[in-house]
């Protein structure tokens, strides 16, 4: 049995029944949000909030407009960080999934890498940052390396858990049908790990982003991390908040995209998708029979 060691954000969402109720809840959320922002703005206007600490929301909005539309300098940095994080995620998950597959196939390999994995898990991996910069230089490659090192663990552990913890009875059935090792692997273990692998990739997504940002903090000349540290060093707090908000927004967007991919890849988890898929398969099967 795999231990569930990660809480679930869905615990927070409530189940509103009708759509009318849902709309009302969203309105209430928005009202609360508006009140909070208004209070903040008023506090800033009245001089209670130090502009060096909490700049007024209006100023932040203006700054967002400025960097996205007027000056347009943020796009380039955004692109850099995104490219770094995605390349890191790509390499990291290939490394993680590859290692996990090897470990799942061979008990001996699993045994031998276990102590190293524990050490790697306990080390704050992001700390390798300066070393990577010394090795790979100040450019793109050191950021990708750090991002992939930071994010490889989520896909690795989740793939391994998914590949190993298969249903005992299903495995018995595969054995009684004389499935070969490869058939069991592709027909049982891989589909079984898909759900949890996607969760691991989502986890890796946000940590790859973090890795790229930290590498940029340490030393770089382009990217969101650099933009943010420049703004804070010049005490342009509006700019720093605007950058932070864009990081949040784009990280959220990425997360949502991953969610959609998750939904369509692991189709058997959602009933309606599952039914559509079965119908299609049934139609194809009937057609094949009719042709014979």
């Amino acid at each position: 049995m795999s231990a569930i060691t990660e809480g679930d954000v869905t615990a927070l969402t409530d189940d509103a029944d009708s759509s009318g109720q849902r709309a009302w809840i969203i309105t209430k959320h928005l009202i609360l949000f508006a009140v909070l922002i208004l209070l903040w703005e008023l506090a800033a206007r009245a001089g209670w909030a130090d502009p060096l600490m909490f700049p007024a929301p209006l100023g932040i909005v203006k700054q967002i407009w400025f960097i996205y539309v007027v000056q347009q300098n943020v796009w380039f940095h955004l692109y850099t960080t995104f490219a770094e994080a995605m390349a890191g995620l790509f390499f990291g998950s290939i490394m993680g999934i590859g290692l996990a597959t090897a470990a799942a196939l061979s008990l001996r390999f699993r045994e031998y890498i276990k102590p190293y994995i524990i050490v790697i898990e306990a080390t704050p991996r992001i700390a390798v940052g300066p070393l990577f910069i010394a090795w790979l230089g100040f450019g793109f490659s050191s950021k990708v390396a750090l991002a992939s090192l930071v994010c490889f663990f989520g896909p690795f552990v989740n793939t391994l858990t998914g590949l190993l913890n298969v249903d005992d009875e299903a495995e018995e059935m595969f054995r009684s049908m004389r499935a070969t090792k490869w058939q069991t692997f592709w027909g049982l273990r891989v589909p079984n790990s898909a759900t949890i692998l996607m969760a691991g990739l989502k986890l890796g997504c946000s940590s790859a982003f973090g890795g790229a940002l930290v590498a940029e903090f340490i030393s770089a000349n382009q990217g969101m991390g650099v933009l943010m540290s420049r703004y804070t060093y010049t005490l342009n707090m509006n700019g720093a908040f605007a950058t932070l908000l864009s990081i949040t927004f784009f990280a959220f967007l990425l997360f949502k995209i991953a969610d959609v991919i998750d939904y369509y890849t692991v189709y058997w988890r959602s009933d309606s998708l599952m039914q559509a898929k079965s119908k299609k398969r049934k139609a194809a099967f009937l057609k094949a029979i009719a042709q014979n």
Partner: protein
Amino acid sequence: MTSIASDSSNIGPAELQDTGFKRLGLHILIFIIIIGSWELAGVFNQLNDLLLPAPSKIIVKFVDLWFIKGTIWWHFFVTMFEATAGFFIGVGIGMSLAIAAVISPIFRRYISPYAIAFNVTPGIAVTPLIIAWFGFGWSSKIAMATLVCFFPPFINTLTGLLYTDEDATELFKSMRANKNQYFWKLQLPSAMPLIIAGFKIALTGALIGAVVAEFFSASEGIGILMQRTSFKLDIAGSIATLLSMSLMGLLFFSIMEVLDYKVIFWKRDARMQQISKKRKAAWRM
């Protein structure tokens, strides 16, 4: 349940037929072979000291850092203090928020969008802001550690407390347990494994937060030591520092394992028997 795992302890059953002793010997043998060939490559001048120094050089640096010059002790202590302080504050905030959210569904409903937004933002992105707010000293590192580590205890406590076994709840209700009994005897113990798992993630997170804040700007701490050595291209020293950091991580990790072992005794058969025996003896007295 969407997101599961991220814990190397469920890396799977070990069913190798070798005896424990032989297995340990093989582990050590493989380790020696790897390190030995690395060292040999160094002896035959195949390694560039600026990229990958030989293990012997790293060990010399390690001994130098810890025992001869002893520079690392202070830095080690500083980072450890920052991470631990951040951990306790973060856990305090996270758990109290979670308990508030469990008690009041309205509160839970209103914080949920913020929690989701917070969950997807990489917490370390806030580093420059935190440094600007709290200055270059210890407080900014503690704040950073707090910020990075508060989320796992929050979400895990919340999940654990919300998903209580329904049958057990019914049993408690039919026995007329009051609210306090329900919380202390059922809700909290059943949430405990998840809460401890949250602590585990948080402690590593706190260390990461402290180290990253030190990278950004600091004058003392193991992160700054690491940055100094690698910017001087003293790669052996840098790897030695990294190893010390792994040591700190392992220390934290094992503290958490002990806590896990002590608190969640019912998950392990041997421990469970030991405790039941003790309780039986106490009851007989």
